[in-house]
């Protein structure tokens, strides 16, 4: 199984990635998540200005197989949404870590980032799930 897990960001057990820069975290789903979901047909995201809370759902992705909630890796205010995903959700399958990003959030507590999984920690989780 292909398992692309970039070292430059952190992860959740629910298969979201989080990249923090200057108090703003960019959030998306992992390569493993998009592969498990299959072809994504719909992405539901919050609006700019919405406040999201760590570990709570902030949206959902739907594929031909299933629908799955998205969980916030950190708390804060949504300052940017990847609007093109509404028309071309398949980008999440093609490029989950770059073009397929979902939201940018002004975080309320940067320390939350340290509590997220490292690339190594996340790799272990997906290896166990594949068992």
């Amino acid at each position: 199984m292909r398992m692309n897990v970039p070292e430059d960001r952190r992860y959740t057990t629910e298969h979201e990635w989080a990249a923090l820069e200057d108090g703003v975290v960019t959030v998306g789903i992992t390569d493993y998540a998009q592969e498990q979901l299959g072809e994504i047909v719909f992405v539901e995201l919050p609006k700019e200005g919405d406040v999201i809370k760590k570990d709570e759902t902030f949206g959902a992705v739907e594929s031909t197989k299933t629908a799955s909630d998205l969980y916030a890796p950190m708390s804060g205010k949504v300052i940017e949404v990847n609007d093109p995903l509404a028309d071309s959700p398949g980008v999440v399958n093609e490029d989950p870590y770059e073009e397929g990003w979902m939201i940018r959030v002004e975080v309320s507590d940067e320390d939350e980032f340290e509590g997220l999984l490292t690339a190594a920690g996340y790799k272990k989780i997906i290896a166990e799930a594949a068992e």
Partner: protein
Amino acid sequence: MTGRRGLDFAEPLIFERGSPGRRGTSTLASPLGTWDASREAPSEFLRRGPVGLPEVGEPEAFRHFVRLSRWNFAIDLGMYPLGSCTMKYNPKVNEAAARMPGFAELHPYAPESWTQGALRLLYELAHGLAELAGLHAVTLQPAAGAQGELTGLMIIRAAHIARGGARTRILIPDTAHGTNPASSALCGFEVVPLPTGGRGFVEASVVERAMDERVAAFMATNPNTLGLFESEIGRIAEIVHAKGGFVYCDGANMNALLGKVRPGDMGVDVMQYNLHKTFTTPHGGGGPGAGPVAVTKALEPFLPKPVVAKTGDVYRFEFDRPKSIGRMRSFCGNFGVLVRAFTYLREMGIDGLTRVAEMAVLNANYLRVNLRDDFQLAFDGPCMHEAVFSDKKQKASGATTMDIAKRLIDFGFHPPTIYFPLVVHGALMIEPTETETKETLDEFIAAMREIARECRESPDVVKGAPHHTALGRLDEVQAARRPVLRWKRECEEKPRPR
């Protein structure tokens, strides 16, 4: 291969058939003269162009739909092992009963004195269902399983409010039916998912940690969607009751329990039946459904009104129920469906229904044991009415659960439920039901083994399936991403028969 060799017709959309002005019927001129719409309705409501209905004759219309029906699959055509849907054969005597003029032509506003037979049927069906559930009273109003869930949750909410304390949470195992969290959310509750334990069901200790005074109810599908009995339900009910919560059982999988186990004895306070599953009423596109709800004596005052009551030998609607949550459905629910379910209940009797549960579980286990060498079981060990496999053993071939499901169509079987429950990756959820013969089960097993062999030796056959249907594999991704919901003459595209 037992697949199809039939003669299927290529058939366009009905809009692409016919000829301008062609009609299927002729009507007499109205004795009232021509009717001028512009004198009867405001101009903004007047249609500006033609309606654009198909213009075809009766034989053309009839053949169109009969031809399309031959592209389809039905329980009257073959085995339909759709997990957790209990697609069992619907006895035709149900139809005879439902079509009796005294039932079929009864006006819902006819006075009670004229409708005693129908009221008696509702009364006796409700009592029969209460008895099978081991509960006190039943409402027949809900029009489907999910509306039954909503009704049950509204009853639970009303009971908490009547006690003086509204509660906000529902605990739901991750192997529950998807409608359970949806119904809870619709009723305004916050859903707390509970993880499945290592043996495939929820452990009491997990409920103990999650249970507090905010929790309105524990809601479980039992048997769950892994086809396993929630074996700690008794202990779980004690924990939930001790903290003032209720236990809701989704009764969609009652086929495994009929006459064997009464949910009331497990500590269940509320449950819904799915008559279109367990009680052989039409299902899926052939609905409508019916989702009666059974409750304990303590919850009876909250049932939707009216209920059918009996005084002496006289049946009547009882409306004077001040604590009732109100009406959930007009009139008496889907009455025709209730007639069919009552017919089945009386035809089978308690001994017959007990045999149903025995045979449903035996058939599922027969498939489980015969397929476990070729397909990975999610949980090894005896199952209830359904067995859950996955595509893990086929991984190396590149063929997936979706491909296996599509290939089964070529062998003349409806695919099972796939990719559900979510806790099993690549799930194939197979529920044969009690109405399939051993010969049919053996044919199904042979087809599944053949597909497993194809995955090893010629996986492209599986990945390209179905090959013997009128249309090949449909593009589900495009259908979801770019659905064309309105036909337009310009974008006319002929179907591609194979």
